[in-house]
């Protein structure tokens, strides 16, 4: 099993593919109109998929991720050992 960040990347691509969106994304790709063009319900669906696959997700804790990288960074931060 990969790191949470790589799992999250896999979940995002699986979601985009199923939603008939371009799954060829980078960390800089916007989730909204200037990128893959998700609407609020699609963001909600992605949020629930991330929660199912990884146990939590950035949107549920109040982080308004606007790019693919914002989501991946959330899981990277989780990997950092606490001080």
């Amino acid at each position: 099993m990969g790191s949470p960040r790589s799992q999250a990347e896999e979940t995002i691509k699986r979601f985009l593919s199923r939603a008939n969106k371009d799954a060829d994304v980078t960390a800089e790709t916007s989730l909204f109109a200037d990128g893959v063009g998700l609407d609020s319900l699609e963001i909600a669906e992605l949020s629930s998929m991330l929660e199912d696959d990884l146990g939590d997700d950035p949107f549920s804790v109040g982080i308004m991720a606007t790019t693919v990288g914002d989501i991946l960074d959330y899981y990277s931060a989780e990997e950092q050992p606490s001080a």
Partner: protein
Amino acid sequence: MIELLRTAAAERGEQPAVVSPRGATTFAELLTRAEAVAANLVARGVGRLAILDDDPAQVMALLAGSALAGAEACVYPLAASDEAVAEYRERFDHDHLVTTRSGLVDAGATATADLLVDHGEPVPATAPDDASLMCMTTGTTGAPKAARHLWSRVLLTTRRIRPVDDQMWLLAYGLNQFGGLQILIHVVAAQTTLAAAETFQPRDGLAAMRRWGVTHASGTPTFWRFLLIEMDSDGGDVPPLRQITMGGEAVPPALLQRVADRFPTARVSQIYGANEFGQNVSVRDGVAGLPVSMLQEGGDVVFKVVDGELWVRSRASMLGYYGQPPIDADAWRATGDLVEIVDDRIEFRGRASEVINVGGVKVHPLPVEDRIGQIPGVALVRVFGRPNAMVGAIVAVEVVPESGHDTEEIDAAIRAACADLPPASRPRSIRFVETMGTTGNKLTRGGTS
């Protein structure tokens, strides 16, 4: 109730009133026990009592005896833990509990056996006109309440019931449920026999149908869904039922058809009723929903639609919930069932408490559930609101797949089947599970869970 039992005992005393894994109880035996219960309750000055007993024949005797004594009985659900029983007793002010549960007897409750025995006390001649009982709600949307009923109103339906021969009714509801009480009353009034399974689970119900040659069975749609799965799974004989009745939850058209197909010898009908309005109406045309003719005045139960919700006025209405102000029997009451009139039919859209608020858009789960229920490979489906930080809630689906079906294919079929729904109504979370939780053989949905 006691009059019905006395008539049945006089006309068919040696006929079994109840058959169960514990044995058979005749109408004559039932009457003897009920009269002993009444005599003992009066002698002990018991005016209200709770009943927790796993033997349906004993519960029947306790209920009939309580009615004769003028004592208000309330049957507790068998699934209740000792802690839940203590909570119910406190909430409903039940000083007296009659039970077969030894731990509770040790703690001061009355053993059922003690009440069923003739201690030589005088038997009351007739039941008081204002004899009442309490029937708990299933509590699918919160803590159970207890509806207080007059026996005289609950028994109004028996005016239309005549004694019949050669019928065996399955008890697929707990006797704590209004549906179970209705079956019990019907069996005594029709002087027929009640078959009680080991439990109220569909698997045991199916076994009881085969063991005792059940001819008539009434259960919730959830009960029938699970029963079909059990039948498909064990590959055993299809019970030769003559009458199948569904009620207690909205009945999806697809399920009506599925049940009719699997039980070709049975007439399939729906009942619509509720603990609160004290009676059921029966629909026998095999079409889901109620005919709009039921909106016309007349009869013991009348309906109207107010802002998409079904309202009812019933001559058999409850007196009110225990601990709350009494209600006017002539008053209209909201049922909590959301409906839509389509052509000549009142179609059910779900419970008001089950509406999912998706970003301010109200989504009814039943139409979505009905679409998904027709997809090959879907054995059971539950649609509910899943909390979501972005839009409040999303439409979520849980599916029990039939064995041998690929879940990815079912997932894709669900999305395809719902693709033309408004965006807020489309399932955004699909999960496959091994089984589903029920309360009183009703599917647990809730607005969000």
